[in-house]
């Protein structure tokens, strides 16, 4: 009898099957994920959780019989005698429960992990690929192992490989083993005269061979080889710019926050390291922490250029564009003093946009107002003009919570190849 403790075996043996299942049900699960994320808070969106998908397409059909006359033997008879007729209404209850089971079969519920959920959630999105990103990728180089070579620095000698080759060579050339010689010498010590010369010659021959075939030959030596490979820039910084002047309501801030969170999650999926910089501005800008950013009281006029100036400063001092992918999202209700327009357009086109991967402007409106009714604000008009002149800006208007994800999805939607070429 054996007792084996299997508890320490690697778990999740079914992981592969589970992934196959998810892959197969991908379209269905994705639909369910989108649907379930609509009525969740953004914070909870990423928590994973239970989704239910229709079983259609995921079923495993078998030949099953139904209908016809049925016979059954049941336990627990209390008052029936042979020949009784039972009305079918009593049977209806059982039928109903059967149908209920059928329903739960139709909608198949299961739990997705956080990662699976986010993957499916963001699956058809991708980063806008810009020329600069490729440029940035080539900037830094890393070393990577690339097999073995016959020349190199002594520090890189691969001992195991060298010894292995030496052993192979010694075996191939039949280098006599020291034990063999020792044996012969032992035999020599106590043998008769007739055999002595023969043994001596043999020992001499082996010793000569031993000297001819070295234990390690220079041709055995191998060095670990390294290659330089371009390393993609694996870090990103995300600038959140927000107008916090009196005209921004709580609702508008909430919309902006939701958008920032989505962007943050999205970036963390793509980059190993993501930093966030919060810049709020009224008629002057300051870098603040997250809590102050969303909840801190502030009032004053509105000068968008101040925020852009601050962002430019921070980029210059802390985030070298060669090392960082820079993303910026600006949220505002669109108010800006007209005298500021020139400064804004100059900062954007000359300083900010050239170093950024992506710059999104989100114009948030009061709830209830349709986005189509919102009159073009001064900032919107300005940005639209810049866009017409060829600046790489993305801009959208949002006034309802439910629009945030569609807008986000729209901005990062995976373009088809030809579309890309056309853009």
């Amino acid at each position, binding site marked *: 009898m054996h007792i084996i403790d299997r508890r320490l075996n690697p*778990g999740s043996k079914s992981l592969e099957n589970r992934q196959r299942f998810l892959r197969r049900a991908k379209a269905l699960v994705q639909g369910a994920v989108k649907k379930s994320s609509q009525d969740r808070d953004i914070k909870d969106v990423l928590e994973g959780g239970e989704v239910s998908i229709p079983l259609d397409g995921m079923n495993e*059909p078998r030949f099953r019989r139904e209908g016809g006359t049925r016979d059954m033997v049941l336990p627990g008879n209390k008052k029936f*005698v042979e020949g009784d007729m039972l009305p079918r209404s009593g049977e209806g209850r059982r039928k109903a429960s059967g149908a209920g089971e059928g329903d739960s079969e139709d909608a198949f519920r299961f739990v997705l992990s956080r990662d699976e959920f986010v993957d499916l959630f963001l699956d058809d999105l991708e980063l806008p690929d810009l020329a600069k990103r490729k440029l940035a990728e080539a900037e830094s180089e890393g070393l990577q192992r690339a097999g073995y070579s016959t020349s190199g620095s002594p520090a890189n000698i691969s001992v195991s490989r060298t010894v292995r080759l030496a052993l192979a060579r010694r075996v191939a050339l039949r280098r006599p083993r020291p034990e063999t010689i020792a044996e012969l010498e032992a035999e020599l010590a106590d043998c008769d005269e007739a055999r002595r010369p023969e043994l001596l010659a043999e020992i001499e021959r082996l010793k000569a061979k031993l000297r001819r075939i070295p234990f390690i030959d220079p041709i055995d030596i191998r060095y670990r080889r390294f290659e330089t490979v371009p390393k993609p820039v694996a870090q990103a910084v995300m600038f959140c710019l927000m107008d916090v002047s009196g005209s921004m309501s709580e609702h508008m801030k909430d919309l902006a926050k939701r958008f920032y969170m989505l962007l943050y999650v999205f970036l963390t999926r793509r980059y190993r390291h993501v930093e966030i910089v919060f810049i709020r501005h009224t008629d002057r800008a300051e870098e603040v922490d997250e809590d102050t950013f969303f909840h801190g009281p502030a009032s004053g006029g509105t000068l968008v250029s101040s925020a852009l100036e601050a962002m430019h400063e921070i980029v210059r001092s802390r985030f070298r564009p060669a090392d960082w992918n820079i993303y910026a999202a600006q949220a505002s209700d669109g108010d800006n003093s007209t005298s500021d327009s020139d400064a804004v357009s100059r900062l954007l086109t000359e300083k900010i946009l050239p170093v950024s991967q992506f710059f999104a402007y989100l114009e948030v409106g009061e709830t209830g107002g349709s986005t189509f009714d919102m009159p073009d604000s001064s900032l919107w008009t300005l940005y639209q003009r810049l866009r017409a002149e060829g600046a790489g800006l993305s801009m959208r208007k949002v006034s309802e919570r439910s629009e945030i994800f569609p807008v986000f999805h729209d901005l990062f939607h995976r373009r088809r190849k030809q579309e890309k070429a056309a853009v």
Partner: protein
Amino acid sequence: MTAERLFEGADWDFQKLQRIHDACAEIARTELGLDIYPNQIEVITAEQMLDAYSSAGMPLFYKHWSFGKHFAHHEAFYRKGLMGLAYEIVINSSPCISYLMEENTATMQTLVIAHAAFGHNHFFKNNYLFKQWTDAEGILDYLDFAKNYVVQCEERHGRLAVEQTLDAAHALMSHGIDRYPGKKTLDLRAEEKRAGERRSHEDSTFNDLWRTVPAGPVKSAASLSTERRHNLLGLPQENLLYFLEKTAPRLQPWQRELLRIVRHIAQYFYPQSQTKVMNEGTATYVHYRIMTRLHEQGRISDGNFLEFLQSHTNVVFQPDFDDPRFSGFNPYALGFAMMQDIERIVTDPEDEDREWFPDIAGTGDVMAVLRDIWANYRDESFISQFLSPRLMRHLRMFHLHDDPAERAGIRVDAIHDERGYRRVRRELARQYDVGYIDPNIEVVDVDLEGDRRLMVRHAAVKGAVLNEADAKRVLQHLADLWSYDVSLVEVDAAGVVLKDHAASPRGIAAAA
């Protein structure tokens, strides 16, 4: 006689498991005369138990999405607390592997070892169905081979093609079984070797030139007589997977091998579905005897014995038909009740028993009678022979006949009285007869001269036809494997066609 306690309290460790096993083995050998495979006891966690659930309890299995689906389903239920996990899983292999859950108490581990490692183990080794249809020595190696073979196929032919073939094979799994002995017994090791040799032969003799040799005019066989055709194809054939493996015209060799694997695995599980009541009854009876004896010997304390009795009574609880918890006969309850009833008949029979069971009543040697029954019966024959009037009265069994054409309702056809005993017993036995449970479907003919249509027939019993939606889907899979049209007719006993279905291949799985 009092002996040293096996354990105190609820905690266990591996030495205690060993002592428990040895104590059980002693009783099983001397008192019950059990003949078992060597035991292998493995302790696993809840998560590993869920893993095992999704692959039919087997420790290794090939990869397929449907197992992932079952896992997700079970996991969701388990997490919500809707479903408890089994205390153990036992595998019909040699050595006989029993999985024990780590969170079982020492009493539960004792119960589970007695139940699985001795009760089920003895049944697996001795029951004629298992002897005939399963190869306990070879199953684990065969599963390992199957797993690797599927992986290799995926590498060579693409995951999609393999998945489609397996989907189709799974749909027909319950029709991939040889139901009648006569064919040579299964030797899974030889199977594995054969498949390996075939593959290496193919690899070593591969010559691309054969592809370029022009095909001569097809030898058109003079139209075969029906009888000759049937002989040639082995028709009628109820093992659909076997038929496809041998005769489907356009399957690749690896696809045939996959069908063969699914077929072998289905065959391996075939006896289990026919012996649920007996298997659980045997195991429950054995654990009850062993636990009681251990308690009598003083090796289990009174408190632990009460704990055992509590879970034992939960296991053998049989709700009445009008109880909301009722979902058919509980195989543990029915099996255990019948075993105990047989014990009573053998040792302390009444006149009624002498009349009904002249062969065993009062013979005195309980274990000899039970061992003989365990070896030579399956659920259907077991119930139809050994369900006693006394037990029918005790469980208050009655027989309902539900004819949809009958307006007045459902008729009570027989109850537990003198007039009804035999009829109730016959009907209950029939509920466990695979011949009645599985729809009887067989390949009847192939139109070799025309469009190669495969003709399948469902012999309907008591007017029950196949579920339309499912039949359509399965038939689609069948057509994909056959790669020509398939038609299915449902015929009742009088030969009247009740319904017919047809399907055309989608032509992906069988793409050359």
